[in-house]
């Protein structure tokens, strides 16, 4: 297939945070030093080349940006200071905006006012919902001395909200993944037998849960993987509890501290706080390649997650401390931060990587298998 060189693509990439699109002169040191780059999928040099030349089809079919966990070895090694690591980060933004068929991702990445407006708008809707339809605030406590949280925010209504949000966000994300599948597998015409889809499927949950590839990136003991994994599992536990186990989680009774509901909550809090503080200090100090450049979307995600965590902790403290009004207001604030965060970040912005990374690994494995198969058939006596 012949592709037309399109240097206009660079304008697009510049908007998405790419700095020096043409600095790289292709020595390949980055690919040589990268602990994750393998023979089947070499990066970052090749994808940098596709970006430079504006080979859109190849670039959009290339999943290697998702393979990168930004250890920064490449940027340290680059003789031209072309920051390949940061370019990979920017390409992840580009790919996110490409996979998202609604165009909102592109809008939020390239226009910060629209992003703020969306966040604030959603927050106001949440607050208005509580203000208009919320029950009157009840300052009295239950007989056991707990705050009457379930009368303030009835489980069934909150569950309804949880599930509708999960469905909308999930649907958007799934449609984006299908779009990604089209760009990566269908459009370049990769032929993959159905059985391969099944045999390789185990890679999806495994990588989601372990992020094993990230560990390879952590060879120098920078602890990124550890911090990230704590944060990821912390959030996953919390998310599962509030969506699936809400009746057990949102309780008026103050459980003993060793109760599983409280222990899991503490684990989540610890994981999130530890990871977030690690990242925030890193980004402020810019003490490592991974933290050297911070796009607005990077900061927004961290700040919103941090505020969600802090409001969650306060909510817990006020509830356990039996302070009804503080509990109710904090509850509203917590939801007003949480909803925009999930609705914006998961399908349209940085948080989408929770799905794109494992799928990229899955698709890469499919492509590798397809290539091996093609190789075998071409070498077989019948083909000859």
């Amino acid at each position: 297939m012949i592709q037309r060189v399109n240097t206009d693509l660079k304008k697009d990439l510049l908007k998405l945070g790419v700095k020096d699109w043409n600095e790289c002169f292709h020595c390949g040191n980055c690919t040589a030093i990268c602990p994750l780059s393998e023979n089947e999928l070499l990066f970052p040099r090749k994808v940098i080349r596709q970006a430079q030349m504006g080979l859109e089809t190849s670039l959009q079919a290339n999943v290697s940006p998702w393979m990168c966990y930004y250890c920064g070895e490449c940027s340290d090694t680059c003789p031209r200071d072309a920051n390949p690591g940061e370019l990979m980060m920017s390409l992840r933004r580009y790919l996110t905006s490409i996979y998202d068929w609604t165009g909102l991702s592109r809008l939020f990445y390239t226009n910060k006012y629209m992003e703020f407006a969306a966040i604030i708008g959603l927050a106001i809707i949440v607050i208005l919902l509580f203000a208009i339809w919320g029950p009157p605030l009840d300052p009295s406590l239950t007989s056991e001395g707990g705050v009457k949280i379930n009368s303030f925010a009835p489980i069934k209504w909150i569950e309804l909200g949880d599930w509708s949000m999960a469905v909308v966000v999930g649907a958007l994300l799934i449609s984006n993944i299908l779009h990604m599948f089209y760009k990566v597998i269908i459009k370049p015409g990769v032929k993959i037998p159905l059985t391969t889809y099944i045999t390789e499927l185990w890679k999806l949950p495994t990588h989601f849960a372990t992020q094993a590839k990230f560990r390879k990136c952590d060879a120098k003991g920078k602890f990124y993987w550890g911090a990230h994994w704590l944060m990821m599992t912390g959030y996953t536990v919390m998310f599962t509890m509030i969506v699936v186990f809400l009746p057990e989680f949102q309780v008026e009774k103050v459980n003993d501290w060793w109760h599983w509901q409280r222990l899991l909550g503490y684990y989540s809090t610890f994981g999130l706080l530890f990871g977030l503080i690690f990242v925030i200090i890193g980004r402020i100090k810019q003490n490592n390649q991974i933290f050297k450049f911070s796009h607005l979307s990077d900061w927004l995600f961290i700040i919103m997650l941090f505020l969600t965590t802090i409001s969650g902790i306060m909510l817990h403290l006020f509830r356990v401390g039996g302070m009804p009004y503080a509990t109710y207001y904090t509850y509203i604030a917590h939801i007003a931060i949480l909803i925009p965060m999930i609705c914006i970040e998961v399908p349209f912005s940085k948080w989408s990587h929770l799905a794109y990374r494992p799928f990229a690994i899955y698709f890469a494995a499919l492509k590798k298998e397809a290539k091996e198969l093609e190789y075998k058939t071409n070498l077989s006596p019948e083909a000859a």
Partner: protein
Amino acid sequence: MEEIRIGVYICWCGTNISRMVDVEDVARELSEMPGVVISKDYKYMCSDPGQALIIKDIKEHKLNRVVVSACSPRIHELTFRKALENAGLNPYMFQMANIREQVSWVHDDREKATKKAKALVAAAINRVKWHESLDKRTVSINPSTLVIGGGIAGITAALELADTGSPVYLIEKTTELGGNMAKIDLTFPYLNSARQIIQEKIERTEHHPNIHIFKNTVVDEIFGYIGNFNSIIGQNGSEIDLKFGNIVVATGLKPFDPSGLENYGYGKFPDVITSLEFEKKLLSGNILTNEGKDPENVVIIHCVGSRNRSEHEYCSRTCCMTALKYANQLRSAIPDANIYQAYADMRAFGKGCEELYTSTSRKGIMFLMFDQQNDLPVIKKAEPGDSCNMLIEMNEKLSGEKIEIPADMVILMVGLEAHEDAKKISHTVGISLDGNSFFMEKHPKLDPVATTTSGVYVVGNCQAPKDIPDTITQAKAATARIMGTIKQGEVEVEVITAVVNEDICCGCQTCIQVCPYTAITYDVVKGVSVVNEAICKGCGTCGSACPTGAIRSRHFTDNQILSQIKGLLSKSLELKEV
């Protein structure tokens, strides 16, 4: 007859010879040959202590002949002859055996190599016995110089020489001075105006009292030898007889004609132009396509006609940097143009060149790499719907993708190649051409200015493609050499000429027929042939043809060569039987 006392010296050349030849064994074995007084080996014979060793031995042991077994006589024969002279011996009582280029560097069996070295040294020893003293011959130097070619190389040489007061005859084939340099706009890597530099030089040349310019003129024939050349030049119907002492060949190169390369469509697409045609656009101040529009997409294709087995295998050395220069000029002329460099390898040697590459690569220029050997880009007509008028299809090596580039203008960076008349010029001045029809220098490293013909120097592109600073350096180096000979007033020349033994000559005149220089005449009174030693160049053809053996080629006499053959074979066979 005096007793023959030979000194034999075997050089180690560091490890160059000693690695493959047992030099100590050679020295020991050859010391037993009749006539050999001493036989030594030494690390570096050509070094000062090495030469001092020979001089000391000549004096102490009353040596009257010397054999040095080392590298090629083309490199150090003169060095050792000088040493003999310093020791008071005639420099021609010397013979060299080449055991480096012909033994240690080309063989890999140490035993066989040592045997061969012994045979070669034995041959030299046998030969040197027949050597005879030859008197030095000097010729006076005519202070005038003939400069062929009026480009930057020729002009520089002419001005340098004329400024010292020596007359210069400057021959230019075309009607204008300036050559290729007058056709270009800016020079790399500092982007100065070429015009400004060359215009001032042309004017100075044209008005210089010591420079006589002959435009529209070619030199057909040159007679004579160093210091005393002459040539007859046709000028406006009349003939002028020029006499000069030295010759500077500065005929330059011409741009490669890309018409034969079908993939580039030169001649088919009006917007596919050569670098020199682009220079014309730059000089005119308008970079416009054939339709008179500003080009949006400009593709510069490198190595057209260079570094490819089917055209020229060599690198033309100037095109990469010129292409970068164009990118800079295009960037400033059309700031938002898409500029592509389709290249094979970026060669940025030379002062300021890598810096030019670095700064250019930061100006938003796209570098695309192709396979210059097997997979050249192809220029096609664009589809009707396209905004450009050409598409360049290529397999881009850095991405591994097959791509097409939109183009409104394509600049072919054509290489440099020899003029059609290079061979004729080489015959006229008596120098050799290499495989690319570039004039051959005397030694690629040690003497890249002189040629194998004394008094003839090659400067500039005609010797090999080079940029302007290198050309000027070479031109000035040649003029320094010429001024040296002019200042001395006379120069030593080879005494290896033919001589007739009038007692034996039967007057058959066979020699006169074979002499390529008409150096032999027939003396009717004596009835014998006579060699004019000033004209004779010592090829020895007459000596081989002489039926009576009356003609001897000095330093290559029958006896010398025959004894060399005998010495070689007797040693070789003797060693074979062992």
